[in-house]
C-alpha cells in the first residue's frame, strides 16, 4: 500500500479535529441537495453565531439556503461558530474560519449574513468575523471585505450591534432578498459606500452607518444622511405563494432538532404581552393543509428523516390543524414516520391532538402557564384559566403521560408575593392531579427571569434586579420542596445581560467589543458565561448596565429602537400596556374582532392570513 496515496495526511484541519471535542460538528458532511448551477456572480455565506448543532436545527437557514440557491440562483454556503476549544487551536495554528461546504475563507464571500436569534449569541458574531479575517467594525472594512448583513428578530433592535453590521434586513427574508440580490449584482465592483447608499433604499434595509445617535435627556435621537426613518419590516403576504424547500440539508451527525421542520404558519395573534415574537411576526399567515401535507410527503422522500415537526409559534392555533393531522396520517404511515407538535396550548384540544401523535407520547409533555395567579395571567394576557390548567393536567395524566413540564416566569410587571406562591401552589396542584391517575407522576418546573423586550407592551418596564431574581427563585424552590417536583431556575445573571442587550443602544457596541476582547464567548452557555467580564467592560466604558435593564422608562422617552417599525403600532402597544395595568384581557383577533394592532391594512388584503 502506498503511503503517499492517503490524502487524509494532507488535510490541514485534521490535527485540530483530532484534538477538539465533538469534532463531527466541523466536518461539513451534511447531505446537500444539488440544485441547478448558479448563474450568479454573487457569493453569500449564511452565518449562525452558535455551534453547528444549534444552527443546523434552525428552520430559517433551511428556508434561506433554498431560497437563495434555487429561487435567486446565488452561490450560497454556511458557517457556524467554533466552540472555545476549537477557536483556541485555530488561533494557535493561525487558521481562519471557513465556510462548511466549500471550505472557503469567510473573507472571500461578497456577503456574510448573520441571523440574530438571541442576544446572548452576539459576541460569537465578533469571533466569527475576526476568525474569518474580516474587520469586526463596519467602519474599518474596505471595498474588498464582504458586506456583513444581519436579519432575524434581533435586527428589529439593531443598535447594540450596529457598529458591526453593514446592513440590517428587517422582516421576512423571502420578501427582502430578491431586491437585495438584484441591487448587489448590479453594483458588483462598486465602492463599499456606494453599495451601502444604494442598499439603504431597498425596502426593509437599515444601514446604521448612515445615521449617528445622540444621547439626550429625552432619549436617543438618530440623525444623518440616510433615507427617512423609520424603516419598516417587509413581509410576504401569502405563505402558500412563498417557496418552502421540498429538499433540505440533512445532517449526518447528531443535532438538537434532528427532524423535518415544516413551517405551518408565521405570526401569532394570541397577544401575550411579554412575547416579542407574538408582536414582531404579525400578521398571521397560514400555509394551507394541502401545501403542508404535500411538503411533508416530498420531504420524507427527499431527506430520509423519519420525523416531521410542525413548526410555528403555536402550532395548535392553525385553523386547519385537525385537517393537517388527518391528511398526514397515511403519508406518515407509508414512510414509517412520526409527527410532533413543538408548542402546545393549555387546553384539552391540544392534549387531544398530542394524544394522537405517537412521538409525543414518549417522555414528558410541556406547557407554559407563565404566571401563578389569574390576575397576573390577565396582566400578561395569557388566556389560560385555573380550570384550563387543571383540566389539561387531568387530561394529560389520564392519557398515560407520567411526566409533565411547566414553564413559569418571575419578575413580570405587577407581580406580588401571591404570584410567586401561586407558582408553587399550581405545581403542587398539578402533581396531586397526576397522582390521582398514577403514582409515577413526575413534574418539572422551570422558572425564568422575565426579560422586557422591545416592540412589546412591556418595553418600558424595569427588569427585576439580580438579587430579587435570586430571592424569588429560592423562595419558589423552598415553597415547592417536593421529591416528585424538580425546580430549575434560569441563571439570573444571563437574564440580566439579556435584559441589557435586549433594550440597548449603540453605546453597547463598544462594551461588547471590550467584553469580547476580554474573553466573552457563548454568553448563552452556562459553562462559558461570565458576568464579571461584562461588568468590567461596562465599567471601563463608563456605562451602567442597570440603566438599560432595571430602569422604568417614561412613555415620552425616545427609545433606541423607535426608528424601526416592526409592524405593531405605538398606539396599540400603549393601549395594551394600559390594559395590562387594569388586568384586562385582549382577545385573539383570529377568532374575535380586530384589535387594531397596526396591521389592519395588510390583514384586509390577506384576509387575516386564514386558510380558506
Amino acid at each position, binding site marked *: *500500500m502506498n503511503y503517499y496515496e492517503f490524502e487524509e495526511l494532507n488535510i490541514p484541519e*485534521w490535527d485540530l479535529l483530532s*484534538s477538539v471535542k465533538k469534532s463531527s460538528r*466541523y*466536518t461539513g*458532511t451534511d447531505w446537500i441537495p444539488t440544485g441547478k448551477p448558479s448563474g450568479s456572480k454573487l457569493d453569500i455565506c449564511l452565518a449562525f453565531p452558535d455551534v453547528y448543532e444549534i444552527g443546523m436545527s434552525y428552520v430559517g437557514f433551511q428556508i434561506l439556503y433554498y431560497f437563495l440557491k434555487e429561487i435567486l440562483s446565488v452561490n450560497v454556503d454556511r458557517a457556524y461558530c467554533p466552540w472555545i476549544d476549537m477557536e483556541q487551536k485555530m488561533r494557535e495554528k493561525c487558521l481562519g474560519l471557513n465556510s462548511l461546504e466549500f471550505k472557503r475563507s469567510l473573507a472571500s464571500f461578497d456577503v456574510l449574513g448573520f441571523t440574530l436569534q438571541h442576544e446572548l449569541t452576539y459576541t460569537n458574531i465578533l469571533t466569527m468575523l475576526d476568525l474569518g479575517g474580516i474587520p469586526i467594525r463596519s467602519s474599518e472594512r474596505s471595498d474588498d471585505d464582504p458586506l456583513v448583513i444581519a436579519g432575524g428578530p434581533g435586527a428589529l433592535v439593531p443598535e447594540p450591534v450596529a457598529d458591526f453590521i453593514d446592513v440590517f434586513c428587517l422582516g421576512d427574508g423571502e420578501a427582502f432578498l430578491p431586491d437585495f440580490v438584484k441591487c448587489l449584482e448590479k453594483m458588483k465592483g462598486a465602492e463599499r459606500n456606494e453599495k451601502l447608499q444604494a442598499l439603504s433604499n431597498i425596502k426593509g434595509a437599515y444601514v446604521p452607518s448612515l445615521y449617528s445617535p445622540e444621547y439626550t435627556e429625552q432619549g436617543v435621537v438618530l440623525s444623518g444622511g440616510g433615507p427617512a426613518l423609520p424603516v419598516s419590516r417587509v413581509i410576504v403576504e401569502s405563505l402558500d405563494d412563498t417557496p418552502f424547500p421540498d429538499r433540505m440539508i440533512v445532517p*449526518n451527525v447528531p443535532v438538537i432538532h434532528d427532524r423535518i421542520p415544516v413551517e405551518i404558519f408565521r405570526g401569532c395573534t394570541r397577544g401575550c404581552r411579554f412575547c416579542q415574537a407574538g408582536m414582531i411576526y404579525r400578521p398571521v399567515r397560514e400555509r394551507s393543509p394541502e401545501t403542508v401535507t404535500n411538503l411533508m410527503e416530498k420531504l420524507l422522500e427527499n431527506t430520509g428523516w423519519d420525523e416531521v415537526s410542525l413548526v410555528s409559534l403555536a402550532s395548535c392555533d392553525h385553523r386547519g390543524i385537525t385537517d393537517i393531522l388527518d391528511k398526514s396520517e397515511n403519508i406518515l404511515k407509508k414512510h414509517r414516520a412520526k409527527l410532533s407538535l413543538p408548542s402546545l396550548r393549555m387546553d384539552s384540544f391540544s392534549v387531544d391532538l398530542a394524544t394522537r401523535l405517537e412521538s409525543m407520547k414518549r417522555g414528558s409533555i410541556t406547557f407554559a402557564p407563565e404566571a401563578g395567579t389569574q390576575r397576573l395571567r390577565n396582566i400578561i394576557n395569557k388566556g389560560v384559566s385555573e380550570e384550563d390548567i387543571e383540566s389539561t393536567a387531568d387530561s394529560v395524566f389520564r392519557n398515560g403521560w407520567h411526566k409533565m413540564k411547566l414553564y413559569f416566569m418571575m419578575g413580570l410587571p405587577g407581580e406580588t408575593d401571591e404570584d410567586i406562591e401561586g407558582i408553587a401552589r399550581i405545581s403542587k396542584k398539578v402533581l396531586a392531579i397526576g397522582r390521582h391517575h398514577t403514582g409515577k407522576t413526575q413534574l418539572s418546573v422551570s422558572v425564568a427571569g422575565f426579560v422586557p423586550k422591545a416592540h412589546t407592551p412591556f418595553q418600558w418596564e424595569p427588569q427585576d434586579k439580580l438579587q430579587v431574581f435570586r430571592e424569588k427563585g429560592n423562595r419558589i424552590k423552598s415553597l415547592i420542596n417536593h421529591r416528585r417536583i424538580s425546580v430549575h431556575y434560569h441563571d439570573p445573571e444571563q437574564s440580566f445581560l439579556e435584559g441589557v442587550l435586549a433594550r440597548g443602544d449603540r453605546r453597547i457596541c463598544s462594551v461588547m467589543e471590550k467584553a469580547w476582547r476580554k474573553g466573552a464567548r457563548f454568553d448563552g452557555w452556562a459553562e462559558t458565561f461570565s458576568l464579571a467580564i461584562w461588568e468590567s467592560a461596562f465599567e471601563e466604558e463608563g456605562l451602567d448596565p442597570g440603566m438599560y435593564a432595571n430602569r422604568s422608562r417614561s412613555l415620552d422617552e425616545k427609545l433606541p429602537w423607535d426608528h424601526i417599525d416592526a409592524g405593531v403600532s405605538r398606539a396599540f402597544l400603549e393601549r395594551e400596556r394600559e390594559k395590562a395595568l387594569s388586568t384586562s384581557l385582549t382577545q385573539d383577533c383570529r377568532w374575535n374582532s380586530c384589535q387594531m394592532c397596526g396591521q389592519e391594512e395588510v390583514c384586509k388584503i390577506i384576509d387575516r392570513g386564514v386558510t380558506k
Partner: protein
Amino acid sequence: MTRMRFAFSKRKLCCFIPHVVLPQVFARAGIRAGIDFEYSEGFSPRPRISIGPALPVGVIGLGELFDAEIRNWESSMLDKWNYFLPDGISLVDCREADGPSLGKACTAASYLLCVLKQISLQEIMDSLNEQLPAGSIIAIGPDPGGPLIMIDLENPQQNSPGLFVKALVNSDIIGSWSEVRIIRTRLGFLEGSTVRTLM
C-alpha cells in the same frame, strides 16, 4: 427480504462521524435512494442495519462492513445509494449475507499505523508489542509502502485501534491522537496467519 452485506470505506472528514450514528447515515441515504428497508419491531421502529466492529473517530477505514435487511434489493441500487452518501463514505462492494452476524464473524483486522514524527519504526513496534494485550497481535512489521507499520490484531470488537494510541502515549512516543494516522485496511477473520475479508 434479503440480508445484504456491504463493504464501505470511511475517508476524509467522514472519519470524524461517530460510529454510533452510521446506521442513521446509511438509513437516511438509503431512503433518499429509494431503498425499502426491513424495520425493527417496537416503539421506535428503525431500518434493520447493523454495523461491524466500531472504528474510533479519526481512523480511516478502507474495508468496513455492515449488514442491512432490504425488501427491494437490486444490484443497480449500489450506485444510487452511493450518490446519496456524504463525500467520504462509499459503498465498495456488496453480496448477500450468510452465516453469523458481523459481530461474531469479524475476528481479526489489519491496520496501518503512521507516527508523524522522526522516530524509528522499531521503537514503535517495541512499544506496541510490550503494551497491547497479550496475544492480541497476530502480526506486526514495517510496511513497504512508506514509513508505516502494518499490524494485524485479533478480536476487533474488543481491541480498538485506540490501544495503539494509548500504548504510544504511555511510552512517551506521542502526546495525543493528533500525532498519528491510523488506517484500518481490512476487517475479517483469520485463515492461517492471514486476515481474510468477509466479502
